[in-house]
């Protein structure tokens, strides 16, 4: 933010105004900016402006051991960090030819789905706040905190778990953890009618989001939309079901869809995914006592671990969409290249720029939030 780059420039008389939404704005998630041009309160042009959260993760990873990078990757997406570490670990395991123990796979699914629940609750709070509904925000954040308590119990960390290592997970579950998990799932399920009354059937919410930021399925496919945002356009695609990893092919769950492709559809898809994640977690809790075995496979000394030359492209379904890691090894103890493909790289840039044009100024924050874009995923 050098001052010389931001001097006031004299413009010819016009009915248009330029406005900066962000980088610090209650209507945006993280530090990110959308520069818009408005005529009256109608947006006529929009340009995404990133870089406020760039920490050079991909470069940093090239200078750290394969194992050390587990501490870096969750920081790429604060609200949903578990898919980051698991996707990276899957990439390293594919390169190193490691066989992941079955119990570790179930534990990873549990971590992923708990993280999805936490991220969706965070999302409901954020998107409601853009409409002035702060009760929902406080509820969402408070209920998410209960999930973070569970993360603390079985990983040691509330947000950045760093629970995974290439080859498995760090430790076993503490005593009576599954009892606590079951109690939390019961509680969250009992809360859904409250959320429905407060938010999902709220007249103001329905009026503000129906038809806001609409895209067709054709547009969504052209713009590279993935995850819940794509399912809100009617395409029932989910990496967990259609390109399965871990033990997702052994689990029963539905892939909720909506058809309108607007902000309301995006919110409702996530609301229904909440139920599906609870359903998956109940199956995991029932299965875990019957899956014995180690939680990680033997690996070489991680301080002197040369991974054979090769490449891997691993994908998982994060709460925001398709997350992928492209890992390349040149045979050394550090990655030669790690490329992080986050769903927000599409949703927060090209998709947002397109959807904002034609919208009203007061709806822009809702469009941003309804896409559930995660700026640090763009910046890395």
């Amino acid at each position: 933010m050098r001052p010389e780059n931001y001097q006031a420039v004299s413009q010819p008389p016009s009915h248009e105004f330029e406005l900066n939404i962000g980088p610090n704005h209650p209507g945006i998630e993280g530090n990110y900016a959308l520069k818009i041009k408005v005529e009256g309160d109608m947006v006529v042009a929009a340009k995404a402006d990133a870089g406020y959260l760039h920490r050079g993760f991909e470069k940093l990873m090239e200078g750290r051991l394969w194992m050390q990078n587990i501490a870096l990757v969750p920081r790429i997406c604060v609200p949903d960090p578990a898919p980051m570490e698991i996707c990276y670990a899957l990439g390293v395991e594919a390169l190193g030819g490691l066989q992941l123990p079955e119990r570790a796979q179930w534990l990873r699914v549990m971590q992923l789905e708990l993280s999805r629940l936490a991220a969706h609750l965070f999302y409901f709070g954020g998107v409601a706040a853009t409409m002035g509904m702060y009760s929902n925000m406080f509820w969402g954040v408070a209920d998410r905190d209960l999930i973070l308590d569970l993360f603390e119990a079985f990983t040691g960390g509330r947000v950045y778990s760093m629970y995974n290592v290439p080859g498995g997970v760090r430790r076993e579950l503490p005593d009576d953890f599954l009892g606590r998990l079951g109690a939390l799932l019961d509680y969250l399920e009992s809360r859904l009618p409250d959320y429905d009354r407060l938010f999902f059937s709220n007249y103001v919410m329905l009026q503000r989001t129906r038809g806001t930021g609409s895209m067709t399925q054709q547009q969504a496919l052209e713009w590279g939309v993935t995850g819940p945002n794509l399912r809100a356009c009617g395409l029932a695609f989910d990496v967990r079901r259609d390109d399965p990893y871990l033990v997702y092919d052994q689990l029963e769950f539905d892939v909720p869809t909506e058809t309108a492709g607007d902000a309301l559809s995006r919110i409702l898809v996530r609301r229904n995914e909440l139920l599906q994640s609870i359903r998956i977690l109940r199956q995991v809790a029932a299965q875990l006592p019957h899956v014995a075995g180690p939680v990680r496979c033997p690996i070489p000394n991680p301080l002197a671990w040369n991974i054979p030359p090769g490449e891997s492209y691993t994908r998982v379904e994060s709460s925001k969409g398709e997350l992928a890691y492209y890992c390349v090894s040149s045979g050394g103890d550090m990655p030669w290249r790690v490329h992080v493909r986050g769903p927000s790289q599409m949703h927060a840039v090209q998709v947002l720029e397109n959807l904002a044009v034609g919208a009203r100024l007061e709806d822009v924050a809702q469009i941003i939030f309804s896409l559930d874009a995660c700026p640090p995923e763009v910046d890395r």
Partner: protein
Amino acid sequence: MKTGKQLVNWLDTVLREFEGVQLRHSGRTRLRVDVGADALPALLELLQGLGSYVHLSAISCVDWIDDDEFELVYHVWSYELLSLVSAHIRIAREPGTYLSIYDLYKPAAFFERDIHEMFGVFFEGSPDMEKFILTEWDGPPPMRKEFDTRKFVHDTFGWQDYNPQWLQALKDRGGGIVK
């Protein structure tokens, strides 16, 4: 009507028509294709048009500095065949230019801009090659292997001694910060 497996076999046959192409399957859903840089746009057009690979998952760039080449990897996904093709090409590091595939895949705009910013590869025909993330960076593209982050930090920033009272007390007792 072809089944998914028949379609994949058919695609293999079609892809082998490209000169110098190498195919390598890994698992049921992954196919690596190595092809000459000149043939990539035609290959992607064929994959998209005939093979229904409509989703550009990512474009990755790898700097092979010892070979004086960049490797560009185009990951495309088919929602119908449920398979991922990673098409690999190599281009010379200098002048480091290649063709944009924006006309075929709109998401290419982000990935090409990112690669231009981080590696310095210029994509002809891409809609926007302006800086995006490193707006106020005027050094070399930082993801190139010759850019040494540690050296840059040493050359650019001064070091400050950090020796607060509590640390001094620890040192006096034989402790301190692990180096």
